[in-house]
């Protein structure tokens, strides 16, 4: 098998695994795949209705402010949470396979990306509802998402490795995620805060991605150079660290499983 063929085969496996995750999710419902758009759409509609009543004074166009943060957050948590357990979930397959184990992690992250695609359909509808003017800066958003995917992949590698050895990583991570979420300024304005918390949020890589996304979508401005540099460094840096950790422990993972 040549390199290109091998890649093609890996890609096919990733697609099949992703298809399985998505089909599974709604396999017992009548509307099936329609839910994957309907679900984010309805929850976004509800969230917008609720939040347009609560926080509207302090933030302009609050629903979109919230939703922008939320889809980025969902991509990250969806990817890392599911990728964390993927090796254990697919225990029986791991022995059979002839490709690197990374494929399983890639497939889960890709699933989160596909889910983001569905959410984006709903999100675009919301943009129209709340009359956000479309601008050319929005074309920059794929770059942000790509860097975020790299970042999520890196974290996923680390988590998946850790989870094989320690089951309680899962519980610990859910607590960390709660803290992380509050430090990502998803539903409040950052300017209201001062001191240590403010510094923590500003230096939070996820806030970096969320903030850049908001700039690109809502304000119609490009993220600053330092934003882009930081996003790139975080994305690529964490990806390589995660990849390295995963590879180093690959044999250990097999033994443990």
């Amino acid at each position, binding site marked *: 098998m040549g390199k290109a063929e091998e890649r093609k085969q890996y890609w096919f496996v990733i697609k099949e695994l992703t298809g399985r995750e998505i089909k599974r999710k709604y396999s017992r419902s009548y509307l099936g795949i329609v839910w994957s758009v309907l679900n984010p759409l309805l929850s976004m509609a509800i969230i917008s209705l609720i939040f347009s009543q609560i926080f509207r004074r302090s933030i302009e166009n609050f629903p979109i402010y919230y939703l922008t943060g939320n889809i980025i957050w969902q991509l990250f948590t969806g990817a890392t949470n599911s990728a964390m357990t993927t090796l254990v979930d697919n225990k029986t397959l791991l022995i059979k396979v002839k490709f690197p184990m990374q494929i399983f992690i890639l497939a889960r992250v890709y699933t989160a990306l596909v889910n983001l695609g569905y959410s984006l359909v709903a999100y675009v509808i919301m943009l129209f509802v709340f009359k956000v003017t479309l601008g050319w800066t929005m074309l920059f958003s794929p770059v942000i998402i790509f860097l975020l995917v790299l970042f999520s992949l890196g974290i996923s590698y680390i988590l998946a490795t850790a989870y094989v050895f320690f089951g*309680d990583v899962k519980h610990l991570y859910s607590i960390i995620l709660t803290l992380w979420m509050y430090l990502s300024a998803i539903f409040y304005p950052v300017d209201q805060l001062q001191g240590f918390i403010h510094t923590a949020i500003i230096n939070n890589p996820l806030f970096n991605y969320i903030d850049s996304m908001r700039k690109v979508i809502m304000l119609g401005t490009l993220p600053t150079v330092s934003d882009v540099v930081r996003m790139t460094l975080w994305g690529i840096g964490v990806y390589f660290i995660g990849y390295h950790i995963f590879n180093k422990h690959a044999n250990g993972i097999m033994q443990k499983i």
Partner: protein
Amino acid sequence: MGKSLKYVVGTFIFILFSVLILSDVQVLADGETAAFFGTEAYEWEWGISSPIGVYARSKQNIDTFEMNVVYDADMLEYQSGGELIEPGLVKVSASGVGLAEYKEMLSFIPRIAGNSAITIQGLHIRTTSGETNEVAATSVIVNVPIPEGCALEDIRLNGESIEGFSSVQTSYSAEVAADITQAELIVSPSEIQTEISDTFLAVGNNVITITTTNSEGKKARYTLNVNRLESTEQVMDQSEEPAHAEPAVVMQGSNSAAKRNQVVFTVVMVVLVLLLFSLIILKINLMRKNKEERIRQKRRGRQANRRAAKAKIRHEQKADRAVTEKTPKIRKDRREVEIAVNHITMEFKREKDEATSIKELFIRTIKRQRSYEMFTALKDVSFRIRKGDVVGIIGTNGSGKSTILKIISGALDPTKGTVEVDKRKIQLLTLGTGFDFELTGRENVYLNGAIIGYTKEYIDEKYDDIVKFAELEGFMEEKVRNYSSGMVSRLGFAIATIRDTPEILILDEVLSVGDMFFRKKSEARIKEMIHSGSTVLIVSHSSSVIKNNCNRAVWIEKGRMRAIGNPAKVCAVYEKMQEIS
């Protein structure tokens, strides 16, 4: 056809939902801030001062607001409540309100009886939080009953009585032909004093008012909306229209237009909801139909299977005999070595009383209590498997059989020693693993095929063969959850062995499961592979499986190789050991 239709229906439902949600959100967004009147319609008496409440409401507390109340100055006389800008226009405003709702009572004296409209226009609200809102106009109809002596008995328009005329109703509409440019009105009783407005008719809607006065000087007004039909030859003269319309009437027109819009909106919403529901029902029906179809196919499939199975058994029995007779005598030295296992030792670093939580790990690391125990799963195992061999690996549970398989297939690296084998040729078959029970048989074929290394094109090509071999025609759209365990094994076996010649096939406890028919069939298939030169590695803890299928056997016990050679002999030793323990 079913599938594409499903998608179409699904998409429609989605679009409908989004349209509904969109329009809903907009209605809610506009509906909160509003201007309105105390009631929906007013009945006043001629010449008596009458009150009307005008309201401004906002989502948040109102700081300042202002509105214009427009009325028909001919018919109503303004008395009090606001600030009269000019006859027909009253301004109501307030500042520093601090409430979410503001009410002002205005009073008017009706000077001419009949229907007229009062409209709130240009409501501007500034809330305490600094938001400004502008609200669309709203109107209310004021009806003043006709005083005695003002009532008409009949109105004739160009010789014809107005349809549905009664003396208490004051507004009517009528239609005239395109060529009539002048309305000729005859009212009765003729002794009553009447005053008729301009009777020139433009194309489209025209308003003609008839004002009657009785002996006491009380007045009433009848309003006629005359629609002159558009002719094909005549060019519409739009500019004339507004000239003939009085301000009060324009307001009424816009009022009815708003009402019409509302009606249209409601109708559209109702239609959309109905359409949505019918589509959902259609979709559910489609699914039910598909299910029935599948069940029918299943029944047919079952019957066919039974017949086919009977025929196959007969056929296979013959084939079996043929194969066993034809198997050539083994001449080891000539064939090349396919798998060479050289002095393999596998050690797991296992912690005594392993820490399963980070806390525990942390505490132990600090206390230096982490003591490792080297667990040797395999110790110095070496054997060679030649091309075309069918080797059985036998051993009790936990003896290291699975570890050696993992090492051979490349999933694990041994601690010491090497394995010489072309890993790309290996096909590891364990039944039922890797199936997702929530997916259909077809989806599982693709998923499983992808995992064991088939390309999409290859699966597309071989799909029918797989289904046929597994004898699962008619079941493939069914979820694997509903399969029997025999069906799952058949499908797994079919997927794994459809490949033309898997050069090295590793079977992990495969042959001891499955029903009778399947066992026969799989054994036949494996014999076929042996015949075609495949190297087969069978792992089992059952000696009968090994004896029946293999030409060599390896007995591994507690990580050490105990015996290798003729299956019958090896199995005999194995059985003896088992009897002792």
